[in-house]
């Protein structure tokens, strides 16, 4: 058996939504203290809808695949829906992750949450 599912390998090899959004109105960066991986999410939100999302990841195959899948899951969604994204949903959409790689999907959930928090904070200030 391969280390990762076909789905994980597909998102790892051809990550969706890679890059930066220069005029993002929500940016979040999180890291896993143990393995040291880092994920950064950029959101462009208009009328409480996620119009665009991009990511940058320094991490393992499942971290890259999780970031990619997470961006797909929230793109076009209302902020309120995106807030509900769980790492389990990300892992399931990838047809599962090895146990010791579940924390990589947690990183994706946290990165999105952090970017949304940043958006809400900016909104509050603006």
């Amino acid at each position: 058996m391969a280390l990762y599912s076909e789905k994980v390998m597909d998102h790892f090899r051809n990550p969706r939504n890679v890059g930066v959004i220069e005029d993002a109105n929500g940016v979040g960066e999180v890291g896993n203290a143990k393995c040291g991986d880092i994920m950064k999410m950029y959101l462009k939100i208009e009328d409480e809808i996620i119009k665009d999302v991009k990511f940058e990841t320094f991490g393992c195959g499942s971290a890259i695949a999780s970031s990619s899948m997470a961006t797909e899951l929230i793109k076009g969604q209302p902020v309120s829906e995106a807030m509900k994204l769980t790492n389990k949903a990300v892992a399931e959409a990838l047809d599962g992750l090895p146990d010791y790689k579940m924390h990589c999907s947690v990183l994706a959930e946290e990165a999105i949450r952090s970017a949304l928090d940043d958006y809400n904070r900016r909104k509050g200030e603006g």
Partner: protein
Amino acid sequence: MQIYADNAATTRMSRTAIDAMLPYMEEIYGNPSSLYSIGQRAKEALEQARSDIAAVIGADPREITFTSGGSEADNQALLSAATLGKKQGKLHIVSSAFEHHAVLHALKRLESEGFEVTLLPVHENGIVDVREMEAALREDTCLVTIMTANNEIGTLQPVREIGAVCRAHGVPFHTDAVQAVGHLPIDVKADNIDLLSASAHKFHGPKGVGFLFARRGVRLTNLIEGGAQERGKRAGTENVSGIMAMAAALKEAAAGMAENAARMTALRDRLIAGLSEIPHSALNGDAVRRLPGNVNFCFEGIEGESLLLLLDDKGISASSGSACTSGSLDPSHVLLAIGRVHDVAHGSLRLSLGEDATEEEVDYIIRSVREIVEYLRGFSPVWRDLQSGKTPFIL
């Protein structure tokens, strides 16, 4: 192109080794302890294998004990020395910070049983300092265990000098030579080695077979109790076919050793030169005092597992000391021991060439690594911060 560049993990069995094992599965399958002829023929073959192996490292056949591999040999060596030490009230062991886990974890167990362990630093070049080793010796030191060559960064330890110091102080010396046997010349007498571990699958023999050399007079303690095989020091019906293959593989490796080492060293250096051109990269361990086929690099701003998966897509099999590849999520203790910080250890790559490697393959590896490192850096937030000056480059 398919390139297996993980020969430090294991090697492909040679045709010679496979051919040497088959007769002992199909025809001479008797138990060496049995008195009828196919048993006794197996016994004779086993003893021939013992002599052949002993000859390669300058030992006496009676000094060779067959084991299930390197880990078992390491464990038995350490337990034996510790048992002898305990009898004399000596409970101190000297080792190094970057030993294989087979040694480090066996030492941990001895610590829990009351032994005290000094782990010598291995410095930035990945080499133990003999003076520091001598200074670490105490009245109650019962063992020095330092590997011959490191399995991750390939650095060669001054085994002969360490052996001489140990002999002068009357302290037993064990060396885990799993990465060196079959690749570099070893002479247990000239090197003053008392105990040495080796494993067949690192020199084109089968997995699950190895041996422990113990100089005459160094009494072994059993890990496995039972029958009287291996002079009563290692119970269990011998893995005859595996041992025959190990002996054949080792003889073949010894015959081609000088020539192979010279050719692989040239290829290694070509690979090192090519990878050094990647910006913000660094070779791990001494550039010269290293195994002929070992290349180990860190690339700043990327993570090793991603690099390995993309190399695999290009047909290249390699390994990494990244935390993400370890299961335990701890970065390589070897890279930490030579002073690489966690972030940098993350982007490590070990390429260990085989005897059949070619220049074309090396050049293909260089091109592939360069391309993938650039690609991964392209969407690495760590690389972005390094490039923008937000965080300083380390390499």
